[in-house]
């Protein structure tokens, strides 16, 4: 099973305009579940379409395995793709939809029928083969689209937000199923989504994109724990990471972040810096470096509670506290940061401490 390698891939739609994708290099090793995540309009779908061969890159190269496929039409790339809206052929029934790729590849009819049936059974849509797409539910259409991709046994799967048209319950279920399927088939996957939850739960490798550029490529947990930039830090995690402006200076011989909260850091000196703190690393309670803040909102979620506080300088932050936690609004509480989890970003939004990799 080959992997996917993108080498300085760029795409510019208008000659004069800004690039939709700028010199993007990325490698999804063989058998990995790569997720390309980013806000809408960041160019991730364009990347996927360039990998698929539906869009010609303005420059750069695409490799599948060791073969360069930049100039090859989609049909010669040995890939399968599941579209956001599934793109089922409305004039063909389910069986013909699934079997279309085999027919195009001139697989013998009997063989094709057997494979279609097998894949359909394995996805639990065996009883729908004679139906027309218009008469299927959203979840069923999604499965047909999946079956259509799987049946060809391609080297690479491409997914373009395949779950976004499903309701929440089926989405969670399908997520798990897709992962299981991928592990089982061992096929390399490039999966595009704007949903960080999907990225975190499904990926073995997450690539975060912003405005046509790659911000970070790493394992999901690493992206969460050591985001390469403020953008990544903010994009991943819910509620979003707390961003507190301040500066890094030497106070009494120790290097410290000074802002609404003060904390000892190892960052270089910075006139403008942003302290990034995940809500679960914001501690409510008396500690040595605690700062007073006012509670503005308390959200009880059951297993945990989100406490929104406001500092003197009117900056706000959220703390995640385990269990039920009761505080009156307006109460003044001491707030501090666990120094082991404090992240400092420089003025450009790049991670300054604990150090980028």
């Amino acid at each position, binding site marked *: 099973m080959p992997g996917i390698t993108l080498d300085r891939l760029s795409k510019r739609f208008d000659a004069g305009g800004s690039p939709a994708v700028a010199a993007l290099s990325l490698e999804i090793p063989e058998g990995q579940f790569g997720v390309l995540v980013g806000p809408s309009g960041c160019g991730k779908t364009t990347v996927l379409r360039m990998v698929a061969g539906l869009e010609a890159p303005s420059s750069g190269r695409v490799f599948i395995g060791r073969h360069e496929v930049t100039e090859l039409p989609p049909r010669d790339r040995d890939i399968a793709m599941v579209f956001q809206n599934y793109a089922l052929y409305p004039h063909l029934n389910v069986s013909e939809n699934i079997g279309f790729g085999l027919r195009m590849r001139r697989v013998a009819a009997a063989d094709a029928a057997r494979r279609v049936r097998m894949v359909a059974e394995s996805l639990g849509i065996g009883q729908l083969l004679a139906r027309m*797409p218009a008469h299927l539910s959203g979840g069923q259409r999604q499965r047909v689209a999946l079956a259509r991709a799987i049946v060809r046994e391609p080297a690479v799967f491409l997914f373009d937000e395949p779950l976004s048209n499903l309701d929440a319950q089926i989405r969670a279920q399908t997520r798990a199923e897709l992962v299981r399927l991928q592990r089982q088939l061992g096929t390399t996957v490039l999966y595009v989504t704007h949903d960080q939850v999907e990225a975190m739960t499904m990926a073995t490798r997450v690539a975060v994109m912003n405005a046509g550029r790659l911000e970070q490529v790493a394992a999901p947990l690493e992206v969460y724990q050591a985001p390469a930039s403020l953008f990544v830090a903010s994009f991943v995690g819910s509620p979003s990471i707390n961003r507190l402006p301040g500066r890094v200076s030497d106070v009494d011989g120790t290097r410290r972040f000074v802002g609404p909260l003060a904390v000892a850091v190892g960052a270089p000196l910075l006139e403008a810096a942003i302290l990034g703190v995940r809500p679960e690393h914001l501690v409510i309670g008396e500690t040595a470096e605690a700062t007073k803040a006012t509670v503005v909102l308390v959200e009880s979620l059951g297993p945990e509670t989100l406490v929104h506080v406001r500092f003197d300088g009117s900056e706000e932050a959220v703390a995640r506290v385990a269990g039920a936690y009761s505080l009156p609004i307006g109460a003044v509480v001491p707030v501090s940061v666990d120094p082991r989890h404090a992240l400092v970003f420089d003025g450009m939004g790049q991670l300054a401490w604990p150090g980028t990799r």
Partner: protein
Amino acid sequence: MPRKTAASGLLQLGASAAAVAFALVMLLPFLWMLSTSLMNEFEVFSYPPPLVPASPRWQNYPEALSAMPFGRFFVNSAVLALFTVVGQVATGAAAGYAFARFQFAGRSALFAGYLGALMVPAIVLLIPRFLIVDALGGVDTVAGLVSTELVSAWSVFMMRQFFLALPRDMEDAARIDGASEWAVFWHIALPLARPALATLALFAFIDAWKSFLWPLVVTRSMEQRVVEVGVASFHGLYYANWPYQMAAAVTALVPIIVVFLLTQRYFTRGIALTGFK
């Protein structure tokens, strides 16, 4: 919700009434035609004109249709229409698809050229076209008759607009599925464009059926004439037999109406397109 149902029912009824009224207004001149076709030759010259014939003269129809070899005319028209429909649908769909879907060198220039072709009054092209067809040995042959009609810029333009309105995802899916560009066109785009194709076929048929000057000029013998020329024949320079002409004109309408009713189910029942963005 009963109130809403009643209101919407009333609205539906109103719309239906409006539809019927509109259709009737549109039909009025035709009814007059029908009425004239049943008059005797002197009744049509009465002033003021009678709305309905005193006694319908049904034999106008057999008499008009046997005054000339109309059977032969209908066959000729059908042949012309068949070639025209096949030619225009095939070339119109292919070219319209190319203009709507492909980014290629020379696209806008070529499209401007196609559009330009619509802007030339056909009457001044008659002589050069005739000379070309004559040079190719096509005068007074079926090939010469249909040759100029096989492609029409109108149909290309129409198909382009239709394809522009169609979603592309299915085509992309087919490309991923391993279809060549022709397979995408044939297996996916064409079936999805069925309403458009039916419309185009209908219009091509009508165009061919109604065409008059070119068939008249490029054919010679009576045996090669088409229906429309036959209809016009009752209206000579000096002698006009209007009841006959109307009878022939009404008869000539029948095939078009039949084709219309046949193609209607395609352009009034779109394909249920799934998963739109």
